């Protein structure tokens, strides 16, 4: 049997996230080139600051600036980075305990091989060229420069100056204290690619459409004809096995006129979205009604499929461009009332 039909689908959105005061303080710090942690009721400094204290559940208000350098406490190698990760060449993920913090921060560590990373090594922040108040303001971590390398200026722009270790204690920062407007929101794009596969029954339906045929399936138990077919008869829970070819005429059971535009919409409003009950089918499906003013469409109207030119056909119900009135008298209400 042929494979089921597949097509790519991308689910993507730039989520706009309001941060609230605690994360806002953390991100404001990053924008300003400092790393801010939060002190918990037990005295531990965690980076990023937890929004709520782990023990008292109160909102965190005690912010502490920590050093942009620290120690690797654990690492793993990422040999095949995926889209969106901080680096597009193999790198190490690391948990870094920044000087002044007790908890660790998770980020990427830019080293050429697993031989160049070890627990306990000293690393420092590599700041992004442009900082906007997000976690990616830290582009990644890198092995800490030795102190005498700093003056040589051998490193690129944006490289953090590591603090001499005796200075890397906590610096108390009053909440809300920051050099510019506090960050209150971030944008986090999420884009995921999927390969959508139709079920075997749906695939047969779409392949039929590619040949100009509308093929439904009948349930062996209740004998109802489903078009498009479901993967199982929803009443009996068994596979619908018998193919039934249907004609291209039917009745509008009910419909609505879509006036509202929205993101991702494919058809320009206003348009009539109608349930069409094909002659011989037991369920109706949604399609477009054209070749008649929207306000003249009515329940019970007889319609026929209008196909696109054959050379535009694919394995899709869009081969039928729309349904149009046949001009026959409307179907009697009783013939379709139990399909509403």
């Amino acid at each position, binding site marked *: 049997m042929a*494979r*089921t039909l597949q097509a790519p*689908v991308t689910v993507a959105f730039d*989520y706009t*996230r309001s*941060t609230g005061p605690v*994360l806002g303080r*953390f*991100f404001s710090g990053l924008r300003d080139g400092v790393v801010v942690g939060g002190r918990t009721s037990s005295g*531990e400094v*965690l*980076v*990023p600051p*937890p929004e709520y204290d*782990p023990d008292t559940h109160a909102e965190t208000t005690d912010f502490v600036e920590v050093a942009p350098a620290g120690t690797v*406490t*654990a690492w*793993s*190698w*990422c*040999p095949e980075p*995926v*889209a*969106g*990760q901080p680096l597009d060449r193999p790198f190490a*993920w*690391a*948990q870094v305990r920044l000087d002044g913090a007790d*908890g*660790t*921060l*998770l980020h*990427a560590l830019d080293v050429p091989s*697993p031989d160049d990373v070890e*627990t306990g090594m000293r690393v420092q922040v590599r700041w992004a060229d442009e900082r906007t108040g*997000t*976690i*990616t303001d830290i582009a990644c971590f890198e092995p800490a420069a030795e102190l005498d390398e700093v003056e040589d200026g051998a490193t690129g722009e944006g490289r953090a100056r590591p603090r001499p270790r005796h200075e890397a204690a906590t610096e108390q920062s009053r909440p809300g204290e920051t050099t510019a407007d506090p960050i209150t929101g*971030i944008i*986090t794009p*999420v884009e*995921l*690619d*999927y*390969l*959508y*596969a*139709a*079920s*075997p029954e*749906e695939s047969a339906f779409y392949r039929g459409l590619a040949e100009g045929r509308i093929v439904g399936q009948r349930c062996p138990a209740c004998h109802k004809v489903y078009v498009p077919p*479901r*993967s*199982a*008869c*929803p*009443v*009996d*829970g*068994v596979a619908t096995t018998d193919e039934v070819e249907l004609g291209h005429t039917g009745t509008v059971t009910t419909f609505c006129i879509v006036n509202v535009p929205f993101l991702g919409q494919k058809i320009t409003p206003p348009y009539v979205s109608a349930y069409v009950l094909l002659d011989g089918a037991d369920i109706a499906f949604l399609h477009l009604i054209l070749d008649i003013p929207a306000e003249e469409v009515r329940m019970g109207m007889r319609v026929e499929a209008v196909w696109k030119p054959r050379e535009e056909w694919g394995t899709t119900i869009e081969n039928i461009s729309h349904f149009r009135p046949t001009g026959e008298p409307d179907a009697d209400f009783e013939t379709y009332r139990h399909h509403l």
Partner: protein
Amino acid sequence: MRDVAVVGFAQRQMAEFDGSPTCVELLVPILAECYEQTGFTRKDIGFWCSGSSDYLAGRSFSFVSAVDAIGVLPPVNESHVEMDAAWALYEAWIKIQTGEVDTALVYGFGKSSAGVLRRTLALQLDPYTMTPLWPDTVSLAGLQARAGIDAGLWDERAMAEVANRSLTDAEKNEYAIRKGGSSVDELLARPMYADPLRKHDCAPVTDGAAAIVIAADDRAYDAVERPAWISGFAHNADALQLGGRDLTRSPSAARAGEAAGGAGVEVAELHAPFSHQELILRGELGLGDDVRINPSGGALTSNPMFTSGLNRIGEAARRVWDGSSDRVLGHATSGPALQQNLVCVMGAEK
């Protein structure tokens, strides 16, 4: 508490399911097998509950179509959790405890291969400070493995032992998609993948579905001769914050195990998608060397997302049905690095 037993279990797994992400066509034969095993029909089932994830499928409401596999006219008492179906089993067990129903059928399904699982699961993290870096599950598990190695709690040899035993056991499991043990030395000779993890230390990406039937009191005897009576069922969660917790421990697993009362089990099916995680769980659940771990091969040999935990419970129950064990445990996990855990203890005695 009412006496409730696991009385039916059916599963299907494959590396890549050629069908829709709703998995309806996969569920129909699985449900049929449950009916065949138990002698129940769908009319005998009082409550239905499923576990799955919209993000795995890439669609909102992806679980809605799955009810077609049940046949839900006339309407049924039905619910759904966006978690591994082991937690759907918990919800069903609770429903029976309220006295409202006497039987339940729980199913899980997921087509991991529809997307890129390593990327999809990055959305399970903190959306402000972690997801924007897209940390993948293998890397996070690797951090946890490293922490244990550094602390001297385990080493790569211990991890390889887990993998070798699992791959060997999987040879007897018709459903496992990865099988074939060799030797610890041979496994250690294979190249590192995501240091400190080798490929065999990581569960394979798996599609699949499964279903379990539970019944109360005498109803259980209608279905099976030797019901697997649930003597304890508990779950617990830790905070997600990876930077604030000791990754070599899983306190929620310990709490769940203690609440479920797993002392004296002979067989434990542990949901450990990474080999070192079995070592953590053995410690947290207090399982001695005499306990048989994952006779099915476990998640390292087959790991259908949102069903794998349910499968552990089913596989454990089978050992009671076939008379080979009197007291067993099934475990499920959710979230990164063993953040959330569930334990179901079953036995031949009520």
